[in-house]
């Protein structure tokens, strides 16, 4: 290594670095630190949501149990669902996107790093807000779906539903900020040569997901923030039937968001799987184009299936048939992806490492969940199974099998990049075994209970129903599942200290994030890469022969903008550095939103507190960096 290169590396580290200590904690705009924060915080919320689930399972372990009061049980299942959807699943996937996308596309940071920093604080405050309500005995009681009129003031005079609706606002702001940043980063900052048809599949899945977030979160913003919150705060009566509103309107708006939401969680997981399948079968994924088109098709079709959550409301048969058809069709792109992954594994040489085990678990559970989903697409069958434990089993198959298994596999897979060390293989295998057994033991019997008439969202049941045995089994399963998650968390924490040193590319993988150090330096790459294929690290010739970008000054925060389709270099773009004002702006936003559940003046106060920091944060600096 020449002295000049070392000097340049030092300059890069100084330019892109974060201040040390507490100042750095509040001011950082490094996508890697923010991405890991999102992931870490989301895992904390997973633990909290899981703890609530364990208490509910304990309550249901035997009939006529008195561990939880009905009020508490209802608050717990509402908070559990809300946590898992809004505070765990979406943020953890978007956080992984924030961490990985710049590394995978070969750039130094996301395009709006301050917006992402702000989004993180808003997300964190929203989560704390929800749990403060719960701890003060005022959790939301109306379900994670908050159907009107149950969530309207006459039936919930507490602040619970206000907290729920406003927590959605926090998450919307955060996720919209992240989604917009990721879309523009992906479209404009790819390494020269990384045309859209060479883009890694995880980046594709994040791109489609981010567009879905923009559309779906806007729907829930209108429904929850505008209509429901306004109904409760200033008595607008959008959903109050006696005043000409309509309670069913809420269901349409909620599920127009709610079903795409499921795919917002699932699509990034498919991106993860494509990478893991390629790396651990040592072959490029078969059917790259088919998988990309399947991802896009899923994203679009998922906006046309929402009524299958509402078959029992009562609608004309022909209208329902349309949604049966779309719900059947949406399985086809997922089937294509599954077949392509199996074809890849068939052609390759499977490496039996922990991430691959999680992929196999994914197949076992997700395919089952997908097929029970096909059952629920049928109107007559759904009218029997809707709102029973069958659906609880189905949705946990799809979300745990379809998203959590790939996520855990992905976290083990990218762990060396995050930390510079390998996660323990033995602990990983134990965790996999526990989670796999626990998931099946908890959620498979639920299908049987549903067929035998056990409705969802019930805090207890009579002994004469005969549901006690299977419920007891499920509770045991839930504790095994929780033990597996604990082993995973311990593995992730302890391996950071005791793990084997990883090196740049411990799995001999193919994408750009493995071309740089583990963990990557502040500016990600010593020299920005140029890409000539879909699997740049599997190109013949070693790392010395890879082409690089020259001409970006190491002493300025500048990245290369390239054209959206072909990634042809267009111009240099300055990126902003660390600032404390994003944090203050988030604090102002949070104060305003919390006040808003008590008085409309919250809007005034929030604006007054959040806008000045926003102006300071966005004020152009001499030299053009904003």
């Amino acid at each position, binding site marked *: 290594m020449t002295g000049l290169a070392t000097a340049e590396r030092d300059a890069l580290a100084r330019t892109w670095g974060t201040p040390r200590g507490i100042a750095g904690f509040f001011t950082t705009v490094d996508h890697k630190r923010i991405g890991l924060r999102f992931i870490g915080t989301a895992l904390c919320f997973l633990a909290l949501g899981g703890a609530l689930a364990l208490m509910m399972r304990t309550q249901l372990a035997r009939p006529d149990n008195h561990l939880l009061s*009905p009020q508490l049980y209802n608050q717990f299942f509402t908070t559990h669902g809300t946590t898992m959807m809004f505070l765990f699943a979406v943020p953890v996937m978007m956080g992984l996107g924030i961490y990985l996308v710049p590394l995978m596309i070969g750039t130094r940071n996301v395009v709006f790093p301050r917006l992402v920093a702000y989004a993180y604080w808003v997300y964190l405050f929203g989560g704390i807000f929800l749990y403060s309500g719960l701890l003060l005995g005022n959790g939301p009681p109306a379900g994670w779906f908050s159907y009107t*009129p149950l969530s309207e003031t006459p*039936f919930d005079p507490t602040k619970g539903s206000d907290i729920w609706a406003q927590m959605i606002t926090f998450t919307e702001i955060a996720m919209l900020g992240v989604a917009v940043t990721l879309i523009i980063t992906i479209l404009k900052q790819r390494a020269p040569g990384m045309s859209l048809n060479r883009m890694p599949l995880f980046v594709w899945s994040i791109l489609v997901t981010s567009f879905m977030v923009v559309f779906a979160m806007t729907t829930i913003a209108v429904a929850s923030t505008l209509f429901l919150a306004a109904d409760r705060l200033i008595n607008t009566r959008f959903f109050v039937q006696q005043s000409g509103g309509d*309670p069913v309107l809420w269901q349409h708006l909620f599920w127009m968001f709610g079903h795409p939401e499921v795919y917002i969680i699932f699509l990034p997981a498919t991106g993860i799987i494509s990478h893991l399948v390629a790396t651990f079968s040592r072959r490029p994924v078969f059917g790259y184009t088919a998988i990309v088109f399947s991802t896009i098709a899923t994203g679009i079709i998922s906006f046309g299936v929402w009524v299958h959550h509402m078959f029992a409301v009562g609608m004309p048969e022909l209208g329902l048939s349309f949604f049966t058809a779309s719900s059947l069709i949406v399985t086809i792109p997922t089937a294509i992806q*599954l*077949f392509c992954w199996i074809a890849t594994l068939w052609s390759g040489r499977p490496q039996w490492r922990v991430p691959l085990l999680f992929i196999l678990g994914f197949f076992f559970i997700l395919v089952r969940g997908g*097929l029970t989903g096909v*059952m629920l697409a049928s109107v007559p069958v759904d009218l*029997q*199974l809707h709102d029973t434990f069958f659906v609880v089993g189905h949705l946990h198959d799809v979300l745990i099998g379809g998203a959590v298994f790939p996520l855990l596999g992905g976290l083990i897979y990218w762990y060396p990049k995050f930390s510079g060390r390998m996660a323990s293989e033995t602990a990983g295998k134990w965790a996999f075994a526990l989670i796999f057994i626990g998931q099946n033991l908890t959620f498979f019997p639920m299908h049987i209970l549903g067929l035998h008439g056990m409705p969802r969202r019930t805090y207890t049941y009579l002994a004469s129903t005969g549901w006690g045995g299977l419920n007891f089994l499920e509770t045991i399963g839930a504790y095994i599942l929780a033990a597996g998650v604990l082993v995973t968390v311990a593995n992730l924490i302890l391996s950071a200290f005791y793990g084997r040193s990883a090196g740049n590319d411990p799995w001999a993988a193919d994408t750009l994030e493995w071309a740089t150090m583990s963990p990557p330096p502040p500016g990600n790459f010593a020299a920005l890469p140029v890409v000539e294929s879909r699997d740049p690290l599997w190109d013949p010739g070693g790392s010395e022969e890879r082409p690089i970008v020259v001409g970006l000054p190491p002493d300025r925060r500048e990245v290369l903008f390239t054209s959206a389709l072909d990634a042809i270099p267009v111009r240099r773009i300055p990126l902003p550095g660390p600032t404390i004002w994003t944090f203050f702006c988030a604090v102002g936003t949070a104060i305003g939103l919390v006040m808003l559940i008590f008085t409309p003046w919250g809007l005034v106060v929030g604006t007054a507190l959040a806008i000045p920091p926003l102006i300071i944060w966005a004020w152009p600096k001499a030299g053009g960096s904003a």
Partner: protein
Amino acid sequence: MQSPAAAAHSVLTPASPHAVAIAHLARLFFSLGALVWLAVLAFLAWSLLRSRGLNQPTEDTHVVRRQTGAVGAALALTTILLLALGFVDYRTGRGIEKAHARVLSADTVRVQLIGHQWWWEIRYQQATWPFQVTTANELHIPLGRPVVLTLESRDVIHSFWAPNLHGKSDLVPGYSSQFLVQADTPGVYAAPCAEFCGTQHAKMMLLVVAQPPDSFAAWYANESRDAPAPRSDSTDRGRQVFLAAACPFCHTIRGTGSGGTVAPDLTHIAGRRMLGAGAAFNTRTELGGWIENPQGMKPGNRMPANLVRGSDLPALLAYLATLK
């Protein structure tokens, strides 16, 4: 009295033509789904475990051709299967809908079913006086005759669901929808509320009692009558307790002058199998416990504390026990 424990609540033991059709469809979907699941897992296992040649080229056109063929075939099979399932599903749905349209005749029993937090109000509609017979939480229907339920709600959304008889239909406030049920096998069928409706959603169960036409007629004739007058001093005292306490503000016992309508009609409460919409079996002990501490076995329900204490309670219970 038939044991309430016998209340049936399974999709898999249908007792009506609709539920039979749906159970067939569900079995078909389930069996095909299980086959597909096993096939996918078998292919996956084979792909992982098959023996491989030592020096397999990385980008062999032969390999790619085989992959394309296999994925294409699997995709074609998936599409055909989905089309077939969609077709069968549509036929079943149409069949049920047509059956609904056909049976609306003079023979039909008409019932208005109203959801409340957390109990069921039942009003039988008839063309002659008294035009309407009101009861609660226990719906009796004659075997083999179509029953048209008019579903309404007075507060939040509830859902009617007797798994042995048919699928679900929501009770949406401000809407009135019709739903057809029929039972061909005698029995007591559970119909738990199937849309989350607040604190006591878990204890909002309707019992559907399907009985032969003559015993239904007898039950209905009795249900149409006012409450029997007290025949002893103690039951007369119980009646006085009922009328003097806060009970009549919410409850009705026809023939006593009480007229509350926000809580279940008690005119023939002694004939019902369960208390508190499925919260407990209707025994003297449970009923006494319910009156003494209304928030005990069903916390959160709308019945307030009352002042029926001491010797008033046995008298009241004795009176209520006569309301067959």
